[in-house]
């Protein structure tokens, strides 16, 4: 429980340029009272991936404890959303292959935070204008590999073993935590490598319209790969900043 941790959060998201909002296949969820947050990225080569990404993000945030506490039910829910529908041959084949999603979760505890990641969604912690942690990827060039992702079906024999990475750290009032899907994370790390402070730009965004305008600009300048984009921002407020009503 993170009732006593003053967390403010919001999120911005956009589909790949040229796609409609119904075709957006990332997802995010947050519960500041529980101190749990998640960002997921449905793999575009799999089908029904947007649904899977949404189920995973919600289940992660709602269910404290280990992944085994929610993953079987999440997989069942995904199957139930597709099963029973009359599907053409290719959709049936894709359904049997399952959907896949990169998954990043962040949990706040009273004296530390813990992040867990499968795939290439990234977490950045910024404290006093400095990047303290980049997780699980810390170099922009490392986004080229094809990560193993969380599947909506049980792993079959012979498939690569799932690798879940985790990291712990401390939090303080004033810290910023940014959770991002891969294209934005790669842009972020490229800017860091060029000695920039990309969090300043992201921090200044206040409305979805400002986010859309900014994203369009960096896409037009070819600074960012054309992909679905999700940014989840968490601000740990300093206790003196909390009003008596806690708002």
């Amino acid at each position, binding site marked *: 429980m993170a009732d006593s941790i003053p967390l403010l959060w919001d999120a911005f998201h956009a589909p790949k340029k*040229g796609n409609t909002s119904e*075709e957006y296949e990332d997802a995010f969820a947050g519960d500041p009272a529980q101190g749990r947050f998640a960002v997921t990225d449905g793999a*575009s*080569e799999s*089908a*029904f991936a947007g649904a899977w990404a949404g189920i995973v993000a919600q289940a992660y945030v709602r269910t404290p404890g280990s992944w085994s506490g929610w993953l079987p039910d999440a997989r069942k829910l995904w199957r139930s959303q597709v099963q029973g*529908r009359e*599907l*053409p*041959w*290719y*959709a*049936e*084949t*894709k359904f*049997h292959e399952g959907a896949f999603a990169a998954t990043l979760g962040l949990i706040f505890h009273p004296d530390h935070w813990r992040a867990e990641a499968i795939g290439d969604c990234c977490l950045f912690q910024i404290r006093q204008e400095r990047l303290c942690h980049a997780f699980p990827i810390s170099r922009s060039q490392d986004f080229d590999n094809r990560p193993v992702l969380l599947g909506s079906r049980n792993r*079959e*024999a*012979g498939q690569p073993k799932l690798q879940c990475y985790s990291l712990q750290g401390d939090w303080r009032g004033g810290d910023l935590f940014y959770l991002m899907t891969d294209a934005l994370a790669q842009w972020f790390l490229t800017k860091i490598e060029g000695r920039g402070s990309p969090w300043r730009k992201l921090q200044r965004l206040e409305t979805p319209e400002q986010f859309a305008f900014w994203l369009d600009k960096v896409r037009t300048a070819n600074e960012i790969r*054309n*992909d679905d984009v999700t940014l989840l921002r968490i601000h740990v407020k300093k206790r003196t900043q909390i009003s008596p009503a806690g708002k």
Partner: protein
Amino acid sequence: MPYTAELSRTNPTCLVFLIDQSSSMAEPFGAQPEKAKAEGVSDGINRLLQSLVLKCAKGDGIRDYFHVGVIGYGGRVTWALGGKLAGQKLVPISGIANNPLKVEQRSRKIDDGAGGLIEQKFKFPIWFESSAGGRTPMCQAFKEGTEVVKDFLGRFPGCFPPLVINISDGKATDGNPELQALALRNLTSSDGNVLVFNAHLSAKETRPIEFPSQETELADPDAAILFRMSSILPTKLCEAAKNDGFRVTDKSRGFVYNADLVSVIRFLDIGTRAAQMVR
């Protein structure tokens, strides 16, 4: 940089297959006496079409990242997809997906994860059936392919360059196809020249020569013609071939000589890899 255009529904690319259907295609591959070359090629094309459809399938819809055409040449030149697509030239991949000639139920044995094997049923759609008869009007087939590619480029001038793959076991009986292939390779989108790849099938049990870099690697003058007709592999494909264990250089051509069935399937996979890099 050429060959980097992104595939999208508004900016698709096209793939055209030219398939030799002359009488010699009824003969078997050297290393596989039970399989006629024509049958092996149709299996390969059907598998490739299936994998392209699956790349573009999202839920129960299909995104038209590709337009595909199959030309058969054996005696005469025809557009060779079957069923509802019979006679159609370039077909968007959604049209391919939704109109197979038939869908066969096949089965395969897979690992059950507990040391045993279980049978898994799967659907195998067929669009293209094998056929073999008559002579080899390869020049005419290239001419027909050039016309549709030209038309496609008019509609999508910024596309990832179209890819034309010619699969044959012999030489043209209607002239020297080098000039036709050159005319095709000279067509461009703003992202680069049209790619022409050739696969030569063999009835002999000789080692295939895959992605050669120099004409001198080929003793046969007919092979040298096919070599000269083939495009140099773009960087992305060269890397893909290297990653798959092929010995390639930056001068390697999209050409395989004396190919057996396995080699044709590997060739088709590498050849269409750049077009398959759909994210």
